């Protein structure tokens, strides 16, 4: 593609300058997830979007390697041309998004319980760390247990450990057909039915549930779809095919409220004593909640059930955005930060206030 460029050396020089100046940096791809995480100070923006381009893609190896700044659109188009996909269905939010940003944020779309997450699919990285060292971890093969799994540690680290110059990701064949069915039941009994369908190995690839409207996506042909409709008493959907993409990118009406949006991660069948409506995905494992309740109340409600809560959008961004950690685990994370970014260059405070 035009515009492909390996900016490793230039970025390495930027890091060395930052070390010399004693400054810190705000890492930025396309900025599509700029709203996410704790608010940063007045750091200089280090633009990573110029370091882009697909480095290698061999469909029969089920692996794509691309520079961190490569737009998700470009990667998805290349995969689509070969009947393949990024199995974690990364959100694009404002329509942009880079592959490096998608891995660093660690977010997955509706397909996550069936397709995996960024950390599940990440096979290897070329990392530029906070000492300006370029290192490679993992590789382009599915199985690799040589050394600690440093690459996957970068997924969801919010760019606090280093710059993902290159990532290698496992890709999968895209289902030949996908269809949407409506479950005409209340949220509770729909969740039970979805659980039953999974236990009976039905080919689900997404679920959606809000108040009295429930939907599932299935990867199968028309014949099997008819059999499933009949067996579980489900209806054909009149939704446009863009429904799941709107859900993935938070373009759905539910996500347009100006209040604080919480992201709750739980075991699918966990009951929550809430009067507010939750939008559920992942057969109940992911719940979106708009609530004016105090932060501590939401966190303890979720924590009691073995889950965690992220203050995803809006509200005060200077406090805890991600779920507070056990002190010893926080200590380990600070220790890891010191290994990869001893000068505290990258996104200080974006993940947790302590690093």
């Amino acid at each position, binding site marked *: 593609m035009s515009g492909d460029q390996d900016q490793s050396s230039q970025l390495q020089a930027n890091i060395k300058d930052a070390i010399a100046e004693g400054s810190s940096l705000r890492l930025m791809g396309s900025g599509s997830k700029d709203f996410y995480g704790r608010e940063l100070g007045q750091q200089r923006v280090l633009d990573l979007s110029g370091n882009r381009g697909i480095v290698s893609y061999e469909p*029969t*190896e*089920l*692996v794509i390697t691309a520079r961190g700044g490569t737009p998700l659109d470009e990667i998805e188009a290349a995969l689509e041309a070969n*009947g393949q996909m990024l199995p974690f269905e990364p959100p694009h939010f404002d329509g942009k998004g880079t592959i490096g940003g998608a891995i660093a944020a*660690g977010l997955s779309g509706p397909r*996550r*319980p069936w397709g*995996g*997450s960024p*950390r*599940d699919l990440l096979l290897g990285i070329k990392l530029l760390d906070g000492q300006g060292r370029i*290192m490679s971890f993992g*590789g*382009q*093969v*599915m*199985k*690799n*247990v*040589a*050394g*600690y*799994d*440093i690459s996957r*540690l970068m*997924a*969801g*680290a919010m760019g606090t*450990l280093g710059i993902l110059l290159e990532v290698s990701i496992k890709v999968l*064949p895209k289902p030949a057909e996908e269809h949407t069915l409506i479950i005409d039941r209340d949220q509770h009994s729909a969740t039970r039915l979805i659980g039953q369908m*999974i*236990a*009976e*190995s039905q080919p689900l690839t997404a679920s959606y549930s809000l108040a009295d409207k429930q939907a599932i996506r299935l990867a199968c042909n028309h*014949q*099997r779809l008819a059999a499933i409709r009949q067996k579980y008493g489900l209806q054909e959907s009149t939704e446009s095919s863009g429904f799941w993409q709107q859900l993935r990118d938070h373009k759905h009406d539910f996500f347009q409220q100006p209040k604080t949006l919480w992201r709750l*991660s*739980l*075991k*699918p*069948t966990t009951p929550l004593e809430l009067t507010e409506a939750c939008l559920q995905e*992942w057969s109940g*494992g*992911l719940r979106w909640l708009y609530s004016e309740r105090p932060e501590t109340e939401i966190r303890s409600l979720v924590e009691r059930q*073995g*889950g*965690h809560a992220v203050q995803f959008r809006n509200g005060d961004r200077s406090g805890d955005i*991600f*779920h507070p950690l*056990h002190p*010893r*685990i*926080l200590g*380990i*994370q600070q*220790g*890891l930060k*010191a*290994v990869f970014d001893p000068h505290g260059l990258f996104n200080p405070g974006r993940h947790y206030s302590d690093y």
Partner: protein
Amino acid sequence: MGIDRQSLAAEFLNMLPSDCVIYREEELIPFECDGLSAYRKVPLIVLLPYTTEQVEQVLKHCHEKQIPVVARGAGTGLSGGALPHEQGVLLSLARLNKIIEIDQDNRLACVQPGVRNLAVSEAAKAYGLYYAPDPSSQIACSIGGNVAENAGGVHCLKYGLTLHNVLQVTLITIDGERLTIGANGLDAPGLDLLTLITGSEGMLGLVVEVVVKLLPIPERQQVALAAFDDVEIAGKAVAEIIAKGILPAGLEMMDNLSLRAAEDFVHAGYPTDAAAILLCEVDGSEDEVSEEIMRVRQILLDSGAREVRTAEDETERMRFWAGRKNAFPAVGRLAPDYYCMDGTIPRNQLGKVLTMIGEMSEKYGLPCANVFHAGDGNLHPLILYDANNEGELEKAEEFGGEILELCVAVGGTITGEHGVGVEKINQMCAQFPDPELETFHAVKAVFDPQNLLNPGKAIPTLARCAEFGAMHVHAGKLRFPELERF
């Protein structure tokens, strides 16, 4: 240095029941090696605690006294990861063997580390569920060991490694603190420490509880067996299956030497004159499987298979697999000893790699059988030798080392699922430059600053690599100069 065995035993007998402390020389011998019996060391003492609290106490004591600790599960590991430390404690977790809970609705099982891999699936069967990772030692190997090694199996391409099937572990740190890493949901807050713990070979902490994902047992499984006159054509058939959008549950290749050995051993019905066979399994609903197996059959024929058979019934399917699952012991019957390698390569390099292994086999004068997880590129060359012949073990080791360096040179890795342990520690120098190795050591130090957990394993010191490098660059020439380096 030099801790006294008797006084150490007395200290542990004060905190543990007497049957948990093994310290008589003759009783220590059975623990001197794991599944890699070429390496043996007698530990100072063996401890076999019954409870998590006892594990905590032991670690606190070892931390205080600065005693090295090597954890051991079922002892089936193939890289010497559980090789004892002569001045340390060998801490067996085999007695922590309870299945704590099976959560049918959320398809989870909470188990202790000593539970055998297969026992999880057996217990889950009543709920129509199973645990997907299936290393060939699954009858004996333990879940704790699987987590330590990030164990694989024959179904990884579709269902992932241990890493993809574990949601949460309870970890005891070297100073005896109990931590929950991961969560019961699909993600956890903070950095993803579970990715570091899984596959860390007991060097970051001890896992005393594991929450694993369970999957619904597929309605039907069917396997196709294809025979090829040429290994390279078999390799291309694998690529063709993937290119056609099929994601097989299992995709395995055996070369002529290994398939003949397997046939002699279990009478699997393999065509013994084939250069290679492929086993391709699909699973799912009745209809899906019927449709897909026909597609697989056609692709295999179109790709140049000499013959394709599908299993007539479940008995035949099990027989086809029995040959593959018994390939290691089958090959083991061909020679007094064999040395199992575990490299991973990009699939498209298979032809080249097998040809070069064939040339090395001639050079070293040692036969080599090849078993290949073709779906995920994980190659297990089995080098045959006789340890009673002077120098033959060393020759086998050198042959093996050369294979692993070849795997790295073609863009792969020295270990796909068996771990580095003590066995492949020199080859780590071929795979990783100094900054990466320094980073590994620094990560370990975050968890275990005094280097007490399984010291000396998995990550070589830079000094060791300098020495190893000097040995291997003969006359300024790297091995495989003709290959592009990745």
